[in-house]
C-alpha cells in the first residue's frame, strides 16, 4: 500500500476538523496555517479525538509529547508530522 502524501493527509485532517469541531463553517477559512490550538479549536478532548482519528485513518501512532502545540497548532504541521512518521 502506498503511503499518502502530505497534501492528502492535510485534506483528511481538514475534513475531520470541519466535521467534528467546525460544522457549518466556511471550509475556505480553514487553511493549512490556521492556528488550531492557540485559537481554541483544538483543546485536550479535541486533540485526543484527532489523535484517535489519525491512528485509525493512517495507522500513524503518535507519542504523548507530540500533542504539543509545536506539532498540533496547524493542519500543515500535523500533516508534516504524520507524513514523516509514515515514511
Amino acid at each position, binding site marked *: 500500500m502506498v503511503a499518502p502524501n502530505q497534501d492528502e493527509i492535510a485534506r483528511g485532517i481538514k475534513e475531520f476538523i470541519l466535521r467534528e469541531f467546525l460544522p457549518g463553517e466556511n471550509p475556505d477559512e480553514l487553511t493549512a496555517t490556521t492556528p488550531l490550538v492557540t485559537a*481554541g479549536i483544538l483543546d485536550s478532548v479535541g486533540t485526543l479525538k484527532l489523535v*484517535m482519528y489519525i491512528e485509525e485513518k493512517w495507522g500513524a501512532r503518535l507519542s*504523548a509529547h507530540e500533542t504539543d502545540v509545536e506539532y498540533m497548532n496547524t493542519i500543515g504541521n500535523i500533516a508534516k508530522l504524520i507524513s514523516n512518521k509514515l515514511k
Partner: protein
Amino acid sequence: MGGGVMAADSKVPISGPGRAAAEAFRAGGAADFLPFLWVTGQVALLTWVVDVYEIEQAAFGHVMQLTLVGFVVHHFLPPALKLPFFVLISVLALGLVLGAVNAAWVVAVGLALIGACHLPISFGKRIAMVVTLGATMVAFQAGWVSSGKISVIWPILGSMFCFRLVVYLYDMRTQGGAFGFWRSLAYFFMSPNVCFLLFPVVDYKTFCKTYYNDEPVRVYQSGATWISRGVVQLVLYRFVYQFLVMDPSEVASAGDLFRYMVTTLLLYLKVSGTFHVIVGMLHLFGFNLPETHHRWLLASSFVDYWQRINIYWKEFMAKLVFYPVNFRLSQREGISEKGALVLSVGISFFFTWLLHSYQWFWIRGTYLLAAPDMAFWGILGLLLAVNMLWQQKFVRKRSLKKGGGWSWKSDLSLGLRTVLTFMAICVLWSLWGAESIGEWLAMWAQAVRVEPGDVGLIGGVLLAVGLAGAMLGRSQREWTYQGAAGKGVAKAAATGLNWRQLGWAGAGVLASCAVLMTPVKTRLVYHASPQVASVLKSLRTSRLNVRDAAILEHGYYEDLTHAERFNPQLFELYSKMPAGMDVRIKGEGIRPTHDFRRRELVPAQSAVFSNGIELKVSAHGLRDREYDLHKPAGTLRIAVVGASEVMGWGVENHETFENLLEDWLNTHNTTDRYSRYEVMNFAVSGYGAIEKLIVLEQRVLDFDPDVLFYMANKKEYQLVIDRIVEAVRAGVSLPYDFLETITAEEGIDRDTHKVLAKGRLRPRAPEMLGLVYNRVASLCRDRGIQPVWVYVPQPGAEPPNRRDINKFFGHAEEAGFDILDLSDAFAGASTDELRMAEWDSHPNVAGHRALAECLKRKLQEHPRLSHLLLGDGVPIDRVGQVFKEPSRVQTKE
C-alpha cells in the same frame, strides 16, 4: 542534544525579530531608544509601588530594585551575554535575600543537580543519580539529618527544582528543547524564585522557545503590564483578606455563607497576582512566557476553569500525566475511549493532589494530608471528567470567525453557565478552605436563615459575574500555555513596533500606579471619608487579619496542624519561620491543669520559649521575681493578670514591662509614703477574661494586693467564646453559673460542632465579657483593691478598626474600672523593631520597654491613679479605704 554533555549555548539565545531588534537597539537609534525608555519608566514606577506597598516584604522590594537595574543593563548587552547576565542577577538576588554563604550553597547544590542530568551515562542512571540527590535533600528538609545553619536553603532549592527538574528531564528524554549551560542555569535559577517559593511550573521547552521570540520592547511592555496586573491583584487580595474574609463561626445566614465562599475563592488573588508578577519580571529579561491565569473567575465550565486557572500547572499535568496515561490506556485492549479519558483525568487529579502535598513538603518540611484537600481534588477531577465526556459527545461551539459569531442567546447562555460554574467553584473552594469536612457542613447548617439583605447581595454578585462572563468570558485560548510558541511566531510576523499598542499598554500601567499611589492623607480623600483613608492606609502594609492573627497566636500554645494549609498569608509567614520556632513552651515550668484554665505555671520550675529564652517560675508560681505571700509593711502591691504578652513571652524575667514598671516605681519613689512597690505578674500565656477572673479568685487575693491591673488585649471577646467552646467540647465544667446558663440557652453541648457553637455564642460575647468584668471589679472593691483595666496592644497585630476594642472600653468603664489605654505605646517606631519576629507579634525587649514607658506616662497623666499610686495625698494604711470608694459607677450584679 538529548542529554549528556551540555553545549555552551550563550551564543544562540536570540533569534528572529528579537535578535534584529536587540542589535538595532545596541546601534543606539533614538527611535528605538524611546520605547525602551517608556517601558523603563513604567518598571521604575512599579518598583516604587512595590516598595510603598511592601509587596511580599522588604526582600522583594530589594529584588525588584535589582531587577530594574539589571533590566536596563541586560537590554544593552550583546545577545551572547544576556543569559549569563540574567543568571548573575539571579545569583545576586539569592545573595541579597539569603546571604552569601547560603546563596553559594544553593548554587552549588543546584549545579550538582543539573550536572547529574548531564552526566555521560545512560538516561536511567542519570535519573537514579538525580533521585539519590533528591532523597538526600529530602532527609535535610525533613530534619532527619541536620543541615545546621544552611537549613534555609532547602525550601528555596525545593521550589526551584522539585518540578522543573522533572520537566527538564522529560524534555531531555523527548528531545523537547535545546540544552546548554547558561540556558539551564537560567531555567533553574530564576531571580524572582528567591522571594516566591510558590512558583509557577515553567515548562522548559516553552522557556526556550519563547526567549526573545518577539520584538524586545514588546516583550518588556507585556512584562510591565503583567507586573502591574499582579500588583493590583495583590492589593485587591489585601483588601479581601483584611476586610472581607470571615471566620466560619461568623456564618449565621445564607448571605454570610455566600460571602464566606466568595471571599475564600478571592483569596486566590494572592497566587494569581504573585504569578503575574513573577512572569512579568521574567519578561523583562526576554522570556516571553505566556499568561499564568486568564480571567479565572469567568470560567463557563469545569474544563474551561481548569484551562484558565494556574495554566502552567494544567499544562504540566497534561504533558507529564494526562497525555502519556491516556495514550497508554488507549492502546490497551478492553479500555474504551471514554474509559481511557475518565481514568487519565482521575490519575491526573490524583497526581495533582499528591504533587501539591509534595510541593508543600519542600516549602514547609511537613507532609500535607487533609480530608478537605482530597475531597476537593477528587470532586473537581470527577466534575472535569464528566464535563470532558459531555464535550466529547456534544462538541462545544467553535468558530473560525473573530468573535465567534455570537448572538444574544449565546451571550445569555454563556452568562448563565459562568454563574453556575462560579457558584460550583465557590462551593468547592469553601470545602478546600475548611479545616475539616465537619466544619464545612456546620457552616451550611448555619446558613438556613435568610436575612433581608441576603437576596440582594447574592443576586447582585451573581448578576455581575453573569454579565462579566457574557461580555468578557468568551475569549478563545490565546492565553493558553501551549499557545505561547505559536503566539510568538504570529507576533513575529508583525513588522516593527506599534507605538499605539505600546502607548495604551503603558498608559494602563501608569493608570494602575496612579490609583495605587493616591496619597491617602490628602484632604480630598481624608475629608471625604476618614474610613476610606484608613482602609487605603492599611492596604499599604502586609498584616494578618484578626482571624489569622488569632490562629497564629493560638499556634504558639496549641498544635494547630496545617493551620496555614489554605491560607496564603499564614503560609507565607510559616514558610519564613526557621525550623523549631513553631514549637510551644517546653519544659517543666508549665503544665496542663485539666480544668478551664488548661495550663498553669509550676512553682520553682523553668521552661524555655521557642527562641531559647528561659521562663523562670517563682516559688509562688509566678513568671516573676520572688515575693513573700504576706505583703511587707509599707508596700504597695499591684497584681497583674494577663496573657502571654504580659507574662513576657520570649523575653527575660527582668525585661517584662511589669518589672520595668516596678523598677521605675521603686527608683522614683520620693514620697516616702510607700517603702516599696511590688508589681506581681500572675499572667499566663493564652489566658482570656474568664481565666483571669479565676486567677484573681484563686490566687491573687491570697497576696493581698492594693491594686489589680487587668491587662486586656484585642481578643477579649474571642477568647471568651473559644475557651467556653473548647471546655464544653472537652467535657470540662464551666467555672461560673452564668456561663452554664448561657451555653444551655444556646443549646451547646459537647457534641455541637465548634463552628456552630462559636456562631451561637458570638452574639452573647459582649454580655459574657460584661459579666466577667463586673465580677472582677466587684471582687476587687469588696477587698479594697483598686481595679484598673489596661489595654495592651500588640506590635503590628492590631485590627485596622477599633470597633470591638471600643466596646471593651465600654464594658470596663461600666464595671467601674479605672482605665489606662496603652494603644499608642508603639507609635513612632517600626513594627519590626518592637515585635519578636514577623511570625510572632509578641513584644520583644524594645516592645516591653515601650509598653513600660507608656504605662508610666498614662499613670502619671491619670488624675486619680497618679494621686493614689504616685502622689503624696494618701497614707499607705488608707489606700485600701480610698480604693473601696467606687471611682465611677456601681457594678451591676
